[in-house]
C-alpha cells in the first residue's frame, strides 16, 4: 500500500478506550471490596480479642455471670476431643472411599459415588445436626461428646474423600505400573507405593478439613450441646469453642462478649495457621505435572 494516512483517534475510539479502562478499573474495585471484609474482620478480632487473652483464658472455665475473668479452657479441651473423635470416625471411611474413587475411576459406580459425595458436601451443617440428634442422641437418651464426634465426622467425610481421590490420581502411573511389574499385588502396590507417594497431599487435605470442622457450630448444638464445666467423658455433654462463641455473643453480658472475641481470635488463628502451613510447607511433589 502506497498511501497510508494516520488519523487522530475518533471520538468513538476514545470512548471505547475509556470504557475499557473504566470497566477494568471497576473489577479492581470489586477485588478490593471482596478483600476488605477479611482485613476488617481480622482487625476487629485482634483489637477486641487480644485484651482477653491471658493465662486464665486458656486454663480456666467460664466465670459465673457478673464475675470478671474466667476462660474457655473447657471449650479448648472439648473442641480437641470432638475433632479427635471426628477424625477417628471419619478419616478411615473418607480415605477408603477416596481410594475407591481413584482406583475405580471412570466406572459408573465411581461416578455415582463421586456425585453423591459432592452433593453431601453441600448438605447444610444444621441438617447434619438434627440427623445425628435423631439417630445417636435419641438412641443414647442424652447429649454426648460421642454424638458430636459423629456429626463432625459426617462433615469431614466428603471433604477428605475428594482430596484423597485427587491426590492419589496425581501420582504418576509409572509408579503404580512399576510396583505391579515387580510382582506386587494390587493392594500392596496401592498401600505400599501409591498411598505413601500421595501422603503429603492427603495430609494437607486432612489438616485443612480438621481445621474446618473445628470451627463448626451448627452440628454440635443438639449433639455435644456444650457444657459450662470441665468435661472429658465421651458419653456426657461436652463444651466446644464455637458453641461457646455463639452463646457468649448473643448473651447480654459485656464480659462474655470479650471472651467471645478472644475465643474467635483463637479459632481463627488455628484455622488460618493450618491453612497457611498447609499451603506453604506441605506440597504434593506431583502437583502441577
Amino acid at each position, binding site marked *: 500500500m502506497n498511501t497510508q494516512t494516520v488519523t487522530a483517534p475518533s471520538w468513538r475510539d476514545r470512548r*471505547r*478506550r475509556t*470504557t*475499557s479502562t473504566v470497566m*477494568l478499573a471497576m*473489577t479492581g*474495585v*470489586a*477485588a478490593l*471490596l*471482596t*478483600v476488605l471484609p*477479611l482485613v*476488617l*474482620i481480622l482487625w*476487629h478480632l485482634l483489637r*477486641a480479642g487480644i485484651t482477653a487473652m491471658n493465662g486464665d483464658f486458656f486454663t480456666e472455665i467460664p466465670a459465673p455471670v457478673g464475675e470478671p475473668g474466667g476462660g474457655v479452657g473447657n471449650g479448648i479441651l472439648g473442641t480437641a476431643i470432638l475433632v479427635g473423635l471426628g477424625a477417628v470416625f471419619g478419616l478411615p*471411611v473418607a480415605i*477408603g*472411599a477416596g*481410594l475407591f474413587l481413584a*482406583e*475405580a475411576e*471412570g*466406572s459408573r*459406580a*465411581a461416578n455415582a*459415588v463421586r456425585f*453423591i459425595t*459432592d452433593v*453431601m458436601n*453441600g*448438605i*447444610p451443617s*444444621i*441438617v447434619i*445436626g*438434627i*440427623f445425628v440428634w*435423631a*439417630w445417636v442422641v435419641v438412641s443414647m437418651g442424652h447429649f454426648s461428646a460421642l454424638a458430636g464426634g459423629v456429626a463432625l465426622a*459426617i462433615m469431614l467425610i466428603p471433604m477428605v474423600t475428594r482430596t484423597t481421590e485427587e491426590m492419589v490420581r496425581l501420582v504418576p502411573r509409572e509408579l503404580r505400573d512399576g510396583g505391579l511389574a515387580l510382582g506386587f*499385588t*494390587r493392594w500392596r502396590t*496401592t498401600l505400599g507405593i501409591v498411598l505413601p507417594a500421595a501422603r503429603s497431599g492427603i495430609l494437607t487435605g486432612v489438616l485443612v478439613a480438621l*481445621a*474446618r470442622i473445628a*470451627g463448626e457450630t*451448627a452440628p454440635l448444638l*443438639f449433639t455435644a450441646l456444650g457444657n459450662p464445666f470441665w468435661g472429658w467423658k465421651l458419653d456426657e455433654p461436652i463444651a466446644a469453642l*464455637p458453641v461457646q*462463641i*455463639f452463646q457468649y*455473643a448473643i448473651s447480654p453480658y459485656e464480659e462474655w*462478649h470479650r471472651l467471645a472475641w478472644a475465643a474467635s481470635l483463637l*479459632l*481463627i488463628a488455628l*484455622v*488460618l495457621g493450618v*491453612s497457611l502451613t498447609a499451603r506453604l510447607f506441605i506440597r504434593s511433589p506431583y502437583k502441577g505435572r
Partner: protein
Amino acid sequence: MQPTPEQAGVLAGGGPRSWVRRVFPSVRHGNLADRAYAITLGAFGAAIPILFFFILLRVGTAAWPALQRFGGGFIVGSDWNPVAGNYGALPFIFGTLASSLLALLIAVPLAVGLAIFLTELSPRWIAAPVAFGTELLAAIPSVVYGLWGIFVLVPWLRANVQQPLASAFGDSFPLFAGPAYGTSIMAGGAILAIMIVPFISAVSREVLAAVPRDQREAALALGATRWEMTWQVVLPYAVPGIIGATILGLGRALGETMAITMVIGNRPDIPTSLFAPGYTMASVLANEFSEASDELHLAALMEIGLILFGITILVNSVARLLVWRVARRAGK
C-alpha cells in the same frame, strides 16, 4: 481358598463395565488378598451413598408426623405458633430465599469482577495474595462471621445505610421503609454475600481460565479493547460455568446457619422492608430445636430440615452438573 462361583460372580459384577473386573483383574483369578482389598474398598465407597440415604430416611421419618398432619399447608401457612400448635413454614422459607437472593445480588457482580481482575488484569504479585485472601475468607468459621456481624456490621449498616435510606426513600419505596432495626433481612443478605463471594469467585476463575487463548487473541487481533474482549468474547464463553458457580454459592447461602441466625433478627413474620427482621429455615432449627418439647413441634422442625435438605440437594445437583458439563467441554 477358591471363591464359590456366586462370590466370584458378585465380585466380577457380570457386566464388562464392572469396575471390580476392570480395576482389579486379579479378582477373577486367584489372589485372595487382592479380592479382600477390592471388597474393602468397595465397602468404603458404598458407605457414602448409604450414609446419604440413611440421613434422608432418618430425617424423613422424624418429620413424618408433621407431613401427615399438615400436608401441603405446611409450606403455605404463615402462622408459626408452637404454643397454639400452629405450624406454617412460609416465613422461614421466605426469609431463606429472600436473604439468599439478596446475597447473590451483592455477591455475583463482586465475585465475577474479582475473577476477571485475577485472570485478565492483575500481575501475579497482586493476584496471588488476593486469591489467597479470598481463600482465607472461605476458611473463617461461620460463627466468627456472626460475631463480627452482630458487633460491627449490623450497627454500621443501621447508622450508615438503613437510617439514611429509610429517611430519604422510606415513604415512597416499601423496600426501604423504616424503622431501621439493624438486625434485618439486609444484614443477613450482606453477611451471606461476604461468605459466598470466595466460592463463586473461585469457580468463576477456573471457568474463565479455561477459555481458550485463541479466543482472546482473535478478539484482540480484530481490534477489540481489553474490556470488549472480556465482555463480548470471554464472558459469553464462560457464562454456563459462572451460572453453575452462582448456583453453588446459592446452595451455600441457603444452608448457612450460624452467621445469619445472629444477624437476621429471628422474627417469624414475612417482612416487606429490607430493614425489618426475618427468620430463616436454618435459624429456626438452631433456635428452637433444643427447646421443642412436644412431638408435633419437633416433627414440624424436622420437616423444615427435610425441606432445606431437599432444596440444597436439588440446587447442588444442578450446579455440579453445570460445572461438570462446562469442564468436560473445555477439556475436549
